[in-house]
């Protein structure tokens, strides 16, 4: 069962002026965070149930809460997965999707099942500032998906060693107050990645 009341209560508690502004002791701040995190968990089950019902799928839906540091076990380990973009805004959006992956070549299909052409962007063995030949700007909805290297800082944030070396980029879109579903399929493992190199020093 999904439930949004735990999150509602946690946000209500966090209306305290010390919670909003962070002027509380460390253990109090930690407790606010704990309450909010517990509220998130049960609320995500509610959202997942709704999307499953409306999307007609029995598959377990996964929220990757650490995408901002390129961590998402599902996209890093699955050769085929689905991306549902939910849009809470009152207008349609084109939205850049960026997912950590291990492969180097992927096929993405849009909600109508049409393929979106795929292109791999790899490190070229040039001097310290590797730049691709400038690509012609393309219309947002016709750009092919791409895999680009994860930045050094992000890898360091994830504790360095582990984690996917690349990120899959593609331009998604969703209608107002609605969602769109995109299919992603890994085409080939490709050669191992050579991590981006910072100039020495």
């Amino acid at each position: 069962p999904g439930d949004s009341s735990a999150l509602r209560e946690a946000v209500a508690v966090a209306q305290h002026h010390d919670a909003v502004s962070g002027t509380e002791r460390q253990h109090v701040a930690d407790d606010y965070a704990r309450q909010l995190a517990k509220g998130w968990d049960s609320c995500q089950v509610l959202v997942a149930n709704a999307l499953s019902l409306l999307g007609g799928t029995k598959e377990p839906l996964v929220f990757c809460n650490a995408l901002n540091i390129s961590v998402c076990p599902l996209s890093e380990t699955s050769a085929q997965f689905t991306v549902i973009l939910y849009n809470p805004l009152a207008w349609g959006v084109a939205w850049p999707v960026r997912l950590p992956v291990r492969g180097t070549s992927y096929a993405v299909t849009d909600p109508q099942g049409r393929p979106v052409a795929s292109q791999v962007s790899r490190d070229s063995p040039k001097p310290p500032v590797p730049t691709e030949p400038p690509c012609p700007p393309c219309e947002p909805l016709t750009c092919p998906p791409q895999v680009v290297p994860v930045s050094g800082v992000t890898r360091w944030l994830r504790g360095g060693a582990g984690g996917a070396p690349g990120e899959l980029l593609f331009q998604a879109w969703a209608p107002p107050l609605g969602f769109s579903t995109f299919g992603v399929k890994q085409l080939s493992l490709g050669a191992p990645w050579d991590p981006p190199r910072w100039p020495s020093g």
Partner: protein
Amino acid sequence: DPEPQIQNEHLRVLFDPITGHLREIQNLAKGFSLPVFQSFYWYNASTGDALCPQASGAYIFRPNASTPIPVAKRVATRLLKTALVQELHQNFSAWCSQVLRLRPGQPYLELEWTVGPIPVSDGLGKEVISRFETPLRTAGRFYTDSNGRQVLERRRDYRPTWNLNQSEPVAGNYYPVNTRIFIRDQKVQLTVLTDRSQGGSSILDGSLELMVSWGQRGGTPREGTPVTSPCPLQVHRRLLNDDNRGVAEPLDEPGDDGQGLVVRGRHLVLLDTAATAADQHRPQAQEMVTSPYVVLAPGPGPHLRQVSREGLGGHLRQVSREGSPGS
């Protein structure tokens, strides 16, 4: 690269080939450009002085000098250009980096900054800011939102409802920024949207600065009161003294590994004419606050691939009619 730059159909962004800093933003659609220098600095936190024993702490923001210290004068960079994104990676120091991104169709420049763990082994509390400097003649005026809605004009060293005797040249001019801050002259406006509440100001004409911070957007941040004495709204600061305002411990969150917090966030920079700037920053700020998000599922995916509001409504009615207990 003698002229490092990134571009899409809306903007061209130039970088200094020597120092690696942002140098100029060109609005291609409207045919004008603005020199913009951006970098990271830190204010040295006061521990109390002859003038006043007040230290900087969880509650109080009080730097011990008006001039912040630059994190780096030269920046190591990496340029990545593909059809889907053009980005420049900047490395200011071991604890401060940033990625500037342009994507097709995107009418703003995205700055994704990563700050921390802030080094304090030198015994100095540090309050980190991102500062944008331009030649705009702003006459001491800048604009910050109040709780994400009404935008209020701020004037340096001035209060609209009483005669201010300014005692804090920096902290006395900081205001809460919940979604946006901007500066403008008669023609041009530079707007910065934030992804969380931060402290912001315009200490020098033509400049604006934001204290890098962390924290959720939830709750109802304080009405537009100055941050001189009350708290500077969850800024990313690392302080070694308590400010004697009731918390009784310094603001020094250890983080998971005890080294101190690392914070990553986003600033969206919009360059537009002053007359039409709101057309962009209003919907864009809303997209920052209630962003679309992705949910994943293993395997090939459901048959129903796209649903809009009408569809959602229809389905909900259909689901509830068919006996599911949904209210």
